């Protein structure tokens, strides 16, 4: 992709091709973020992602360069979309209750992995964390964003992000241990 700033400027002027480039680059990451935030519900993740990019496309004319990466802006939109989803839509559905057809992709992915149960446990426990903990862990370890990018996306200081990251990992570890003690068939992480 050519210099991202130029592409953003073109998209801001209404250039579809330019926005298409941004869409192609960021859609997978935003999808993963939303997918994990909604507990692995594929249909909901797709709906929310569609809304996120539609909203981004319609409001990109107002986007301003403030020293933060474009991805932070998209993560902010996505975070708000997930909040709206939980505020207005269905009650929380446990990953254990997700219909099999919604998990088709997951299952096929898991088959490629060495330890399917372990991965499921991490995903399940990740969902139990409070939203800000989820945000930071997904952005930091799944998407490998820098603390600066995460701070911009969650609208907190870099120091606060480091603290959240530490607490979130600690909490996730506890949930995994609890889950393992309740279900001894799960291997030690």
């Amino acid at each position: 992709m050519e210099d991202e700033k130029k592409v953003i400027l073109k998209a801001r002027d209404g250039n579809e091709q330019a926005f298409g480039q941004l869409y192609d680059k960021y859609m997978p990451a935003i999808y993963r973020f939303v997918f994990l935030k909604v507990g692995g519900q594929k249909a909901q993740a797709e709906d929310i992602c569609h809304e996120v990019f539609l909203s981004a496309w319609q409001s990109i004319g107002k986007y301003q360069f403030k020293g933060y990466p474009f991805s932070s802006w998209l993560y902010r939109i996505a975070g708000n979309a997930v909040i709206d989803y939980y505020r207005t839509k269905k009650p929380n559905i446990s990953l254990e209750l997700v219909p099999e057809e919604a998990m088709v992709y997951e299952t096929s992915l898991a088959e490629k992995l060495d330890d399917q149960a372990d991965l499921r446990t991490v995903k399940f426990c990740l969902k139990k964390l409070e939203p800000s903990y989820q945000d930071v862990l997904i952005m930091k370890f799944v998407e490998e964003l820098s603390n600066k990018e995460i701070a911009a996306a969650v609208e907190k200081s870099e120091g606060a992000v480091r603290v959240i990251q530490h607490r979130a990992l600690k909490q996730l570890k506890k949930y995994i241990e609890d889950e393992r003690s309740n279900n001894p068939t799960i291997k030690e992480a």
Partner: protein
Amino acid sequence: MNDRIILQLKRLREIEPEAGFVAGSRRTILALKKEQVPVFVWPNLRMVGAFAGLVAVLSASIFFFSGQNAQEALASPEVLNNEFAALSINIELQEISYRQNVNKTISSAISEIGSTNANHMNKDVLNAESEKFNLDTLESNPQIDRLLEQVIF
């Protein structure tokens, strides 16, 4: 254990959206924006601009002239004099009305004083009262008598 959890989290990166969804959503989003573009095309924009300009000119002229009238009203001695004259006429009318009421009250009081028909002014009544007043029957007060002697003599 943290390292192992982090490793598991990194493996979640392999999650990807379905290609069919990505292509369909992309196409829909860009098409939606396209439909909205005609709102901002030049001929419409020119019409909106012309209308906005007309409204602005009208608003400015109304504001300018109404502002000028107010200033003139404040600055013109003629306007102020007329207003002052009208004010003094009002005061005089109120004063005349007050005086008329006072005159009525005074004349009715005078006519009442001059009238002998009223009981308290009738001479016959007063004489009858004085006849009833018998000085001999009154007890004398030596203190008052002494004081009266001092005053009179």
